[in-house]
């Protein structure tokens, strides 16, 4: 039987290739994303072990505020500690380290570095030091208040050469320096795409942070004592009041690697999730191909049964075929996946994210797990068809046609409806009040139910969808319509991958539309200005606070007010506080104050959102103790509550509170109300000029600003669409494979049609419309499910502040059109094959 199975496989190479294709696609995405994640991880691991190669000890503050998104704000230490460390025995060299916000302005006046959520822009120290992170690739290290060195990538991007004047923006404002050096980081031009401006330590402290303060001390030992002993000795020598901790080189390396690693892990999990979805979609295709193949071989199998093969042997032969297909497909998939991941790396490089070329990391784990998963998935997908193949009665060998028995059973109806009912019941329970965690289960049951019902609903729905084709395309359209409904099981199995893909795309689109709609609503109500100045650096820096003051002095400006964001420790937990200027904020930014005036917000006061105040039982007049980023503590009295917490968050404080502290003081936006009655261009021109002076920040009109806010959702949407493309591609290939097999199966019919006068173009039309109907079948069901899914997700996010569900009407129409086009394209090759059917061969086949 094994030999028969092998012969069966080799005898049908075309089918082997088709079946393997689905396996190859599924596993290649899996392998590709896994290789890519591993490569990225290894790259950053190498980078940081290189970077701290010569650092034997690392001194930093113990004071840290950890906030959401894994961000932390660590307090600075005083620079006089360097002198203490330098004199210690066992220390060869000690160097201060600063890493703060700085943005290099290009020759065209535009800041360097990518916008949005791109890599950060830093200012740091560039000095001769035995354990230095940076090397000079060209020129020398900067000395004195007028010199700067920048990283190689930025020099290239900004076309800067040594001797040029370079404008840099930092917390203290903007300043122009002379470029004296171009630096490289380890062996890359710039670490992870970040931009760096480097100064001597005194200038760095004064320009980037506060004079006399640094982030850390890097120590290079002379090798006389171990790193552990050296670190302990340093820690012991530093005054306790300095609140420092000393790490060994190995510890700081591991910590940095971990931090990057967990960020990369998230990315890797995202990639893996979507490749598993794609693989799941691939299962349908594999299952479908094996089912069709079993149906087409019915007579052959019946003959084997008639001459004495047992059921088991027939089933086993088919499973052997599945093993071969799974193995071959997975191996090819791994190879294709490696190619795919190098494509991804090239893509990143094209986006100017320079990752060192340490080569792709193809771990043994990736190879074995991909092949294993591919094999298991293929064999599992083939089990049902194989069992069905074994059940063929020997008498079927005598039957004239080998059509799949297409009558869906009652059991299917009950199971499908039951599953949907159960799923809906769970969702209703959640809506009524059960925990959100059950939502996923509810959705899963609805999906399963729909797919189980597929063969029952696909016939009527396909016939309905095919009506226009039958009406406007005459007999060819009518035949396409009938063909798409003639084998409901097959049609629904072909449409299922489309259904899943479209449902996910629709759900994500609906979610995005709802978020965007909400953003629009929120900004329309709360942002009262005519213009806004924004920056993309919301966490690592921002607009200088003096910009708002400057703008206020312009005659064209009625009022301008800056809004900032600081990290604060409250009840031992990091929180984001919004800083406002109570003198100017009124009529510019509306937080919906209840029973309070903005002038109530003194430097000893705080406004809380109404919901937070109620939730945490902190009423008006109570006292709140906080710790600022510089470790100083404040007592603030709650002087007001407000309603709109979407933009302001739960806490609003007076910006004057941090004016004299060590806390980074930036605005993330300046909102502007223009004087009435002035021409728009005039106001805009003046504002533009004022903003340009700072070299940073983008001036936007009200509508541009609101669009930009909701536009950020598009970035994320784009990423998810890209990942879902994997599933769509597999669904697309699934349609092609099924059509090809159907065309093969209907050879005689095609021959007959050609004989009685169907032209080749009419044959193509028939196949094309069948494909379109199948694709639309999946799309229509997918859109219905997707909208439901989107609604459920929006509902689940109610607590995160998402309140209204918006139906994405235009995107939905677009998805329908795309599905139509996918159907057209999928039909191209099968339709061509159909026109190549030899009439006489087809008619003579018995």
């Amino acid at each position, binding site marked *: 039987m094994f030999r028969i199975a092998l012969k069966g496989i080799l005898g049908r190479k075309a089918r082997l290739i088709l079946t393997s294709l689905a396996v190859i696609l599924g596993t290649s995405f899996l392998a590709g994303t896994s290789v890519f994640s591993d490569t990225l991880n290894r790259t950053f691991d190498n980078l940081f072990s290189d970077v701290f190669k010569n650092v034997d000890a690392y001194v930093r503050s113990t004071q840290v505020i950890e906030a959401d998104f894994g961000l932390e704000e660590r307090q600075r230490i005083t620079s006089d500690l360097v002198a203490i460390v330098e004199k210690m025995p066992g220390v060869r060299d000690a160097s201060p380290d600063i890493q703060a916000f700085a943005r290099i302005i290009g020759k065209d006046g535009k800041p360097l570095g990518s916008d949005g959520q791109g890599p950060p822009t830093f200012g740091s120290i560039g000095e001769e030091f035995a354990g230095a992170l940076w090397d000079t690739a060209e020129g020398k290290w900067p000395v004195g208040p007028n010199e700067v060195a920048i990283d190689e990538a930025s020099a290239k991007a900004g076309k800067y050469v040594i001797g040029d004047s370079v404008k840099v923006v930092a917390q203290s404002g903007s300043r122009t320096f002379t470029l004296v050096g171009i630096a490289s980081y380890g062996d890359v031009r710039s670490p992870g795409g970040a931009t760096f401006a480097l100064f001597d330590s005194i200038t760095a402290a004064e320009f980037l942070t506060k004079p006399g303060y640094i982030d850390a001390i890097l120590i290079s030992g002379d090798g006389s004592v171990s790193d552990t002993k050296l670190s302990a000795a340093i820690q012991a020598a530093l005054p306790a009041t300095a609140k420092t901790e000393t790490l060994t080189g190995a510890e700081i390396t591991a910590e940095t690697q971990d931090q990057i690693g967990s960020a990369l892990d998230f990315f890797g999990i995202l990639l893996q999730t979507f490749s598993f979805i794609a693989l799941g979609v691939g299962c349908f295709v594999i299952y479908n191909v094996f089912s069709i193949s079993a149906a087409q071989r019915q007579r052959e199998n019946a003959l084997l049964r008639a001459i004495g093969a047992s059921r088991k042997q027939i089933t086993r032969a088919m499973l052997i075929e599945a093993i071969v297909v799974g193995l071959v497909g997975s191996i090819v998939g791994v190879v294709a996946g490696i190619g795919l991941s190098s494509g991804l790396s090239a893509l990143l490089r094209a986006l100017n994210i320079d990752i060192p070329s340490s080569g792709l990391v193809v771990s043994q784990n990736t190879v074995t797990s991909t092949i294993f998963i591919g094999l298991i998935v293929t064999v599992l997908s083939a089990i049902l068809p194989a069992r069905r193949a074994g059940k063929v009665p020997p008498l079927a060998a005598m039957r004239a046609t080998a059509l799949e028995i297409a009558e869906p059973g009652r059991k299917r109806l009950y199971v499908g409806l039951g599953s949907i009912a159960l799923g809906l019941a769970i969702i209703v329970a959640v809506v009524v009040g059960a925990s959100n965690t059950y939502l996923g289960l509810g959705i899963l049951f609805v999906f399963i139910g729909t797919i189980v019902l597929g063969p029952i609903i696909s016939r009527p729905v396909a016939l309905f969808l095919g009506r226009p084709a039958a009406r406007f395309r005459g*007999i060819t359209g009518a035949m396409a319509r009938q063909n798409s409904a*003639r084998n409901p099981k097959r049609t629904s199995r072909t449409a299922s991958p489309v259904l899943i893909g479209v449902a996910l795309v629709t759900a994500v689109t609906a979610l995005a539309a709802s978020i965007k709609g909400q953003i629009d609503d929120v900004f329309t109500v709360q942002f009262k200005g005519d213009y806004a100045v924004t920056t993309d650096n919301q966490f690592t820096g921002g607009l200088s606070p003096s910009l708002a003051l400057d703008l206020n002095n312009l005659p064209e400006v009625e009022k301008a007010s800056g809004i900032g964001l600081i990290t604060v420790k409250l009840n031992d937990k990091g929180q984001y506080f919004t800083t406002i200027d109570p003198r100017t904020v009124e009529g510019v930014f509306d937080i919906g104050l209840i029973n309070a005036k903005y002038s109530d917000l003194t430097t000893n006061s705080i406004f809380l959102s109404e919901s937070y105040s109620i939730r945490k039982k902190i009423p008006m007049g109570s006292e709140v103790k906080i710790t600022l980023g510089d470790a100083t503590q404040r007592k603030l009295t709650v002087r007001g509550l407000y309603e709109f917490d979407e933009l302001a968050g739960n806490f609003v404080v007076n910006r004057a509170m941090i004016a004299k502290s060590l806390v980074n003081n930036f605005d993330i936006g300046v909102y502007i109300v223009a004087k009435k009655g002035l021409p728009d261009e005039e106001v805009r021109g003046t504002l533009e000029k004022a903003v340009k002076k700072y070299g940073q920040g983008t001036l936007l009109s009200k509508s541009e600003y609101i669009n930009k806010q909701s536009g950020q959702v598009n970035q994320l949407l784009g990423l998810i669409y890209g990942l879902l493309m994997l599933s769509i591609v597999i669904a697309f290939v699934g349609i092609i494979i099924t059509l090809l097999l159907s065309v093969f199966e209907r050879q*005689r019919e095609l021959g007959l049609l050609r004989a*009685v*006068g*169907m032209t080749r173009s009419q044959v193509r039309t028939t196949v094309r419309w069948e494909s379109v109907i199948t694709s639309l079948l999946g799309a229509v069901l997918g859109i219905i499910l997707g909208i439901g899914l989107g609604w459920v997700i929006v509902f689940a996010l109610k607590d995160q502040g998402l309140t209204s569900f918006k139906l994405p009407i235009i995107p939905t129409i677009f998805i329908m059109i795309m599905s139509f086009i996918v159907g057209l394209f999928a039909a191209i090759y099968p339709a061509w094959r159909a026109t190549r059917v030899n009439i006489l061969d087809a*008619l003579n086949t018995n």
Partner: protein
Amino acid sequence: MTPQTTTIAASAISVTKEYGSGEDKVFALRDVSVDFYEGQFTAIMGPSGSGKSTLMHCIAGLDELSSGSAIIDGTDLSSLKDKELTELRREKIGFVFQSFNLVPTLTANENIRLPLMLGNNKGDEEWIQKVIDTVHLQDRLTHRPSELSGGQQQRVAVARALASQPHIIFADEPTGNLDSITGAEILTFMRKAVDDLGQTIVMVTHDPVAAAYADRIIFLADGHIVNEMTEPTADRVLDLMKSIGH
């Protein structure tokens, strides 16, 4: 019965069909020339491998010739491109095959009108009704092929072949898969189509009883025409077949 007219409906002129090349070359037809007359029922007979089906396929534009020409209604088929040839088959030729004659997804009515519909042609409704009446299919029109018996399926096929009032009808063993009674029924319909409706039919068969329904029989062996008979009876056909060593 002698032909009422000598107008030629279709003809083969020095038709040769060969397969393979060199030593393996096999001739299916060698220099065959024959005319088929309008309003006549012609049968082509011969043992298996004699080339009778190949001859029919070549004249009907289903197969390409190695040399010679096939002419339908004055048109040389070798001069036509695939599209023109397809349209000629649709408009001027009717087909009845041995089995698998019908499209399973279409009703009997749709199958009958299939060539007309493919050509976006409504056809002559009065004629179509007459054809349906002749083959007794009035109450089977909405059925699909799987719901029809073998005989009914062949009747639908005959009706389809007649529906577009083609110039000539080719039937390839139309009764080969039927029992003798049903077969006789089909042959009677075909005879009626010639006598009452004035159609031209060329039928390939190896059955002397079926051939006896024809006006004229052409005998083929080894790719040659070896004999011809008019006004045949089954007995005469059998005798002749014995004499040529069938």
